[in-house]
């Protein structure tokens, strides 16, 4: 297993290099001009050129990329073209927001999805199963931003129970942090919950039809014991895969939710930097996002190994 982790980590390095190079060189194809934004609408082409020279944008793209890479390896992610703020500081401010949202969304997804899937599987074909099916279809179909708006209208404007906008850092107040995350997490996590519920249902139904389950039943084991001890663990592998994929979806979905609830996380940073073409910020957001996805997949592999001894032996 340790070997697997080491291999995964080693292969992440060229992948990171490739993705960051792709992001950088794709960015250079943009016709956006930071100089034009900084100088403003009334600027002459000469003034724009002067600013861009000051930013080093007149040098070849590969020179700038190698320079950035050298800095990044030393832990320096550069500075924003617009605010001159260190990019690392911006990332460190935005990352907790996105991680909080993702963890909150995942919590909602798992807390709703797994029990709903089990409930549905144990009543397969019955009206309650079909009801859960309808609800999961609804959950998958509802756009997260729409749900977010409805939640704000109901729980902030009609019944003033929760804040409509903003994020309170965990370090400031645990209860206010949780309050500020409640609605965004539900809006973000509902679709993921529906996917997890569907996967849990189909996976568990498949396992419950296996020979060894029937054998266990015929030996007189209680249904509860069979499900909790045998069926669930064997049904978990595909569910874990779906959960891992949903984490990636939650990370990308947080971009929209951040906007609706005015939470300035990585998504907002990504949009702002892409719209204005702030290359070092874009690079940092891409690298951090890739690292997060790689960590999720590494955890997925570890999860597989824990659930399946055959994988552990590889």
């Amino acid at each position, binding site marked *: 297993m340790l070997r697997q982790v080491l291999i995964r980590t080693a292969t992440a390095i060229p992948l990171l290099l490739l993705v960051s190079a792709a992001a950088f060189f794709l960015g250079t194809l943009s016709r956006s001009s930071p100089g034009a934004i*900084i100088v403003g609408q009334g600027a002459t082409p000469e003034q724009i050129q002067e600013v861009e020279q000051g930013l080093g944008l007149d040098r070849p793209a590969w020179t700038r990329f190698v320079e950035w890479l050298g800095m990044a390896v030393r832990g320096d992610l550069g500075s924003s073209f*617009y605010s001159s703020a260190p990019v690392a500081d911006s990332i460190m401010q935005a990352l907790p927001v996105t991680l909080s949202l993702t963890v909150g969304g995942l919590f909602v997804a798992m807390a709703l999805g797994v029990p709903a899937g089990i409930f549905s599987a144990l009543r397969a074909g019955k009206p309650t199963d079909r009801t859960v099916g309808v609800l999961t279809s609804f959950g998958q179909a509802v756009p997260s931003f729409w749900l977010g708006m409805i939640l704000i*209208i109901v729980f*902030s404007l009609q019944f003033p129970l929760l804040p409509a906008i903003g994020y309170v850092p965990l370090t400031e107040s645990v209860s206010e942090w949780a309050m500020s995350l409640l609605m965004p997490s539900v809006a973000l996590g509902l679709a993921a919950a529906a996917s997890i519920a569907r996967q849990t249902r189909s996976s568990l139904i498949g396992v419950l039809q296996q020979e060894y389950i029937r054998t266990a039943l015929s030996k007189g084991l209680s249904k509860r014991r069979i499900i909790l001890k045998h069926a669930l663990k064997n049904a978990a592998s595909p569910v874990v895969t779906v959960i891992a994929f949903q984490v990636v979806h939650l990370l990308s979905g947080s971009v929209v939710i951040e906007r609706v609830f005015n939470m300035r996380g990585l998504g907002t940073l990504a949009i702002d930097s892409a719209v204005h073409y702030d290359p070092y910020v874009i690079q940092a957001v891409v690298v951090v996002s890739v690292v997060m996805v790689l960590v999720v997949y590494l955890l997925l592999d570890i999860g597989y190994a824990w659930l399946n001894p055959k994988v552990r032996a590889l």
Partner: protein
Amino acid sequence: MYRTTKSLGGLLRRGGLAIVIALTVSACGGQGGSVVEGPRSAEGLIETEGAPLTPTGTLRMTMAHPLTSWDPLMNTHQISPHLFTEYDSLTVTDEKGEAQPWLATEWARPEMDTWEFKLREDVTFHDGSTFDADAVKANLERARTAPAGPWSYVFAPITEVTAVDPTTVRVTFSEARAGFPYEMSTPAGAMVSPKALADGVDLNSQPAGSGGWIWDESESIEGTKLVYTANPDYWNADAVLVEKVELNVVEDANARVNGVQAGQADIAGFLAPPLIDSAEQARMRVGIKYGLVDNLAILDRNGEMVPAFKEPKVREALALLLDREGYNKAVYGGHGDPGNGFGAPGTWWYNEELADTVTGDVERAKELLAEAGYPAGFEFEVPNIGQRKTANEAIANMLARGGVTMKLVTVTNTEWIQDTARGRFPAALRPTSAVDPWTMWDGNISNHSPYNPFGLTDTADLDEKMAEAASLDERADQKKLVDEVTSEIVARHLVIPTGFSPSAVGYNPNVAATQEPILSPGEPNPRPHYLWLKD
């Protein structure tokens, strides 16, 4: 606890439905009948009774844009509230777009190319240094030699700055600059501590002003929230009525309104026109000003890319196809002003004669197109960016009624600036200043503006008139010439004005002001001076 607001239906209405209605109206090319509003202050905002004697409470404003630099020279109007909580400007602007005293108490023009400012004697910067003529000289000298920025055009014509005595500074220009006192009310006129300039303080990351509040770095979160505390030594103590000011960046327009309605903020700036009605229904006090006028600029009047644009009759036809009242309803929900011309209603250079120009005469437009040899219309492209999509679509729909096809080419914001300046498009929807006529003219319409990619030479006579107007002392004399120029712009159809765009601010009913807040047309939020909290 968060404050209760209004009906579910009203809230639901304000999003997508407003856009659908706007586009429907634009497609129909509305012919009059709209409710037209002039600029208006927020009703009931002015209240002196009960105002605190010492700064009290925290005023929370929501802003659409984050502050990216504390250096005033690197900021635009949109960042004014962030800046002017910490900094003071030499002048401020009233609702008519006229400069009023602030750090400068009076000003005069002894020569056509010279402005002389008298300065306050009781101003101290937050770092303890004194505000005087040398401080102003240091600021203007820095601005002249600073790297290019949004205000370069203000400082480029300055040839000399002289500290005549500690309270008098003289600024000499290479040409007559009538708008300089107004320009000193913008971020260009924000005064930075001379000590900070001499010490080489990094103005991107550290402010160095003399304003009514002092930035509190420990409570602020970069890009998200700026917190300021009242300056106990401020020269204008009557204007500082709140102990703390909190500026929260809320980029989404709906979220800004939600924030005020939920009691999480006191003021929502940059209210999008579709949200104005619902904000008022939610008992917010809404103030509207006009800082910009939308124009369809015909950049290719030589007909290099689109031969039809060379024909004056074609340009006149386009002007007749554009129904300004329909545009106002479609794009601004009726909260803009469909008057023709360039000076906003209420400003000293508002041209009354242009207000009644015929608009939306499709039959006459078709006749003109036929007379010019384009009976079946023609086709051209304009750059399109997200925030102008509705406006561009409204114009395209109106022009289509005359057989003219305006194709929208999606570009990014920066591409829009470059492409328009470099001649990729023969025309573009461009807003111009409705506050200062020289900013409007020199920055956008004149042949010597940055937006003359086709090398036009058709404004020389108007350039002379604007220069002559700048050399006159009396507003009445200036207005006469400026009116002639704006009337000529419309008569020659150099650009086609489509109406004044509203700049709206929503106030929670708990906010009051001892006098009209400082809010220049074009600024998204008021400066916090004179504002106080009733609860």
